């Protein structure tokens, strides 16, 4: 493999990894607080892309405004899902909340098929993202560079919120011990709503960038990236926000390098992430940065 070609693969790996990282954070935050696998998260990612798509197509917003509105609206969808489908089940057996999550996920997918139609749609790409850089004879689209930059800014903003602000402190407290946090005067329901809003907003950013990169969107686009991002969250250590970022990048890198160095196995690309999952669960179930989740009696 030539060096420029390797560079191209590396750029692809980093941009794919940042997308996984953005989605993985939503999973890990919700899991850290509620011990719930939010199966609908991949579909929230899909909704973000569709909202942006229709913002440009129907209301003909300028693309940057459409993207911003889509992120806000998707955060709101996240809050609504928590309110409608998860909050009534807080005290129910855990399996009920999981079933509810599957129900929401399946509802969003089929809602999208019915309302947006099942056919893939071409995603609008502003000219800024389609410039081509030629580095040593290898063409790289500018969007490949923008994705890690935007992801990095979003992740920095999220880290600031979680580690430097009061609502972030409340999130960490609820994730550590919900009951004690409640006794200490933390509004648990609002904090959980904020968690869903932040996670869904990041998923929407991911969805829009996914649309920019592979310029088409379809109702089931969230399923496989969502599953892989969950694997990334486990790989990084479920419940740990920095872990989810690292896990996302590692998974993106591993996947692209598999395709780059073993093209014969490229068809098995989607299976590779789950192989990693099984290996991680066997060897180091707490992931790279995870702490043991203590069992509460």
């Amino acid at each position: 493999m030539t060096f420029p070609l390797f560079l191209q693969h590396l750029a692809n790996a980093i941009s794919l990894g940042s997308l996984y990282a953005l989605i993985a954070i939503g999973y890990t935050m919700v899991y850290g607080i509620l011990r719930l696998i939010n199966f609908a998260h991949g579909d929230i990612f899909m909704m973000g892309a569709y909202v942006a798509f229709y913002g440009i197509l129907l209301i003909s917003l300028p693309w940057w405004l459409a993207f911003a509105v889509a992120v806000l609206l998707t955060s709101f969808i996240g809050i609504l899902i928590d309110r409608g489908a998860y909050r009534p089940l807080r005290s129910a057996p855990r399996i009920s909340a999981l079933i509810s999550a599957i129900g929401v996920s399946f509802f969003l997918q089929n809602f999208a098929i019915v309302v947006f139609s099942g056919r893939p749609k071409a995603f609008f790409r502003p000219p800024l993202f389609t410039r081509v850089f030629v580095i040593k004879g290898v063409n790289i689209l500018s969007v490949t560079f923008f994705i890690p930059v935007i992801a990095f800014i979003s992740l920095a903003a999220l880290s600031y919120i979680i580690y430097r602000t009061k609502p972030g402190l409340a999130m960490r407290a609820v994730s550590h011990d919900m009951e004690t946090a409640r006794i200490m005067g933390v509004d648990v329901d609002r904090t959980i709503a904020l968690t869903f809003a932040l996670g869904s907003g990041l998923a929407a950013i991911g969805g829009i960038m996914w649309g920019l990169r592979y310029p088409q969107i379809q109702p089931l686009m969230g399923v496989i990236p969502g599953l892989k991002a969950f694997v990334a969250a486990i790989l990084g250590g479920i419940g740990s926000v920095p872990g989810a970022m690292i896990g996302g990048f590692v998974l993106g890198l591993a996947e692209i390098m598999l395709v780059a160095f073993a093209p014969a196995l490229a068809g098995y690309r989607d299976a590779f992430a789950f192989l990693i999952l099984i290996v991680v669960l066997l060897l180091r179930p707490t992931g790279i940065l995870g702490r043991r989740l203590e069992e509460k009696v």
Partner: protein
Amino acid sequence: METMSSYADSTRAMRLKRLFTIASLIALGLSLVWANHRLDPYMVRILNLCAINIILATSLNLIFGFAGQFSLGHAGFMAVGAYACALLTMTPAQKEATFIISPLIRPLATIQLPFLPAILIGGILAAIFGFIIGAPTLRLRGDYLAIASLGFAEIIRVVGNNAIPITNGALGLKGIPEYTNLYWSWGAAAITIFIIKRLVDSSYGRAMMAVRENEIAAEVMGVSLFYHKVLAFVIGSFFAGVGGALLANLVTTIDPKTFIFILTFNILIIVVIGGLASITGSCLAAIGYTILLEALRPLEAPMTIGPVHIPGVPGLRMVIFSLVLLAVILFYRQGLMGKREFGWGWLVRRMVRKT
């Protein structure tokens, strides 16, 4: 004297119950003979699907309702059973005609087995995969099984698309002999119900339910968490494989797209509507859901009512059913039957008291 008469009553009650069971099995058999001769092929097919869904739903209910583990891999285990059984029952000539990209690997190309051993091998293979998935994930606390089993179902689909010398890739298998009929499917359903009912009523079943209710309490009482979770999962996977095998020899054509997540979702919704931890509920819901799914098919087809032409809306049924699932889990969590089962107790009690 008192105890003597109540003892006589109870043996009499047991004899009566057995009589009722045998009578209803005979009635079921007779109605199958009737259905086989009198109903049109479409109806027979729906009845076959009802029985297959009963097998799938009771097996998922074992994992889900009784052992409390969240498995989303049923479609994957069905695929394993379906491919295994299909490859074992197809004629060598049919295999040669189907595998046009690259020929089927050696020993499989010439083997042809009768239906029963092929079904069992399909089930056993699915159970082995169940163990491979369950062993690493069920050792841990938490819901890793959900994601690992969902991932497994995806892997199976990816392998189905890529391992062309075994699965024929995206083209799938065609011309699978149509062995599945009402006797096979309902027979298998009856055996599945019998085995799973006996299992959940045994000490193993009690242990599984203890694990479901409270893992720590169960462990303190000396129940091995890992052993019972894996046992439920492997047995559930076995029957999922059997269901897949019956399905393959019913529809006669399978490809990786047959086993998408929607299949798992359908079974999940049956189990939830019927009531977690009720086999009776699973059976009733399986029959009701299968029929309803067919009955609502026109919703997705183009319709012309008078002058108004409505184009078909694919996906509409699944929107409705996902809302139904959410409504049941949010507002009516016990489902149709809760944890109750159907038995002859009420009838027998009345008869014994009367005489």
